[in-house]
């Protein structure tokens, strides 16, 4: 039995869109990290799905594994950085953290 994966693809797109929208809107650093996590979950599903569609199941899954590892490290370090930022600047409000202003 073969199916056309409409639902899965749609899910991936919607969740990715939610993650991106949050990145554009939010002002809290922790929410940024949460949005990154949501993005990566959508990415993982997309990778495994693509692996199945193309017939290279193993490749898709191994890449998804790599993505999990990378994303976890990103979350860990981002949270540690957020804690340090709070200690140094006293706030995690993005509109106050503008040292890169040109």
């Amino acid at each position, binding site marked *: *039995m*073969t*199916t*056309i994966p*409409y*639902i*899965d*693809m*749609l*899910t991936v797109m919607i*969740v990715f869109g*939610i*993650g*991106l*929208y*949050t990145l*554009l*809107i*939010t*002002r*809290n650093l*922790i*929410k940024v*990290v*949460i*949005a990154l*996590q*949501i993005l990566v*979950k959508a990415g*993982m*599903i997309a990778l*495994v799905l693509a692996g*199945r*569609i193309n*017939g290279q*199941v*193993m*490749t898709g*899954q*191994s890449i*998804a*594994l*790599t993505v*999990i*590892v*990378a994303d*976890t*490290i990103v979350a*860990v*370090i981002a*949270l*540690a*950085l*957020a*804690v*340090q930022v*709070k200690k140094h600047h006293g706030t*995690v409000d*993005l*509109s106050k953290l503008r040292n890169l202003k040109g």
Partner: protein
Amino acid sequence: MLNALIAAGIILCAIQAIRVKKLIAAALWLAGCSALTALMLYLLGAPEIAVIELSVGAGLVTVLFIFAINIIGDETPVRMPAIPPLVAWLLVILSFGTLAYLNLPLLEIEVPTLVTIPMAASSIWEDRALDVILQIVLIFAGVLGIINLISDNSSRESKA
């Protein structure tokens, strides 16, 4: 059918994760999102990935979030966001709309029958050895970075 339910669940959890005001609640919704993603991955035929995602996403990352939020505290900014929500929606929909337009022909494909293929350890090591090495390096780097950041923290506290 099950697919559709889980998909709806993921979307619901994601929306709730970003809408709630208290950060700890957001972290808990994220944990739910991870759990449902793990389920979906299992249904897509990748059980090992599902297990790893469950333990890492719904376990490790959530614990970390709770720790960090406890240290940082819950502040909720009251001002308007920098980019008007409408513009943000427009950008997101535009980018995905164009991507979807490019990918429309792909929707004619059909996915073959699902046969759960467990991922053999040999295939990870043989085909993607470089990947595994990079992941190990990454984990070490992450651990070292965390230790560095935390030790700075405590040494600064002791100085102050």
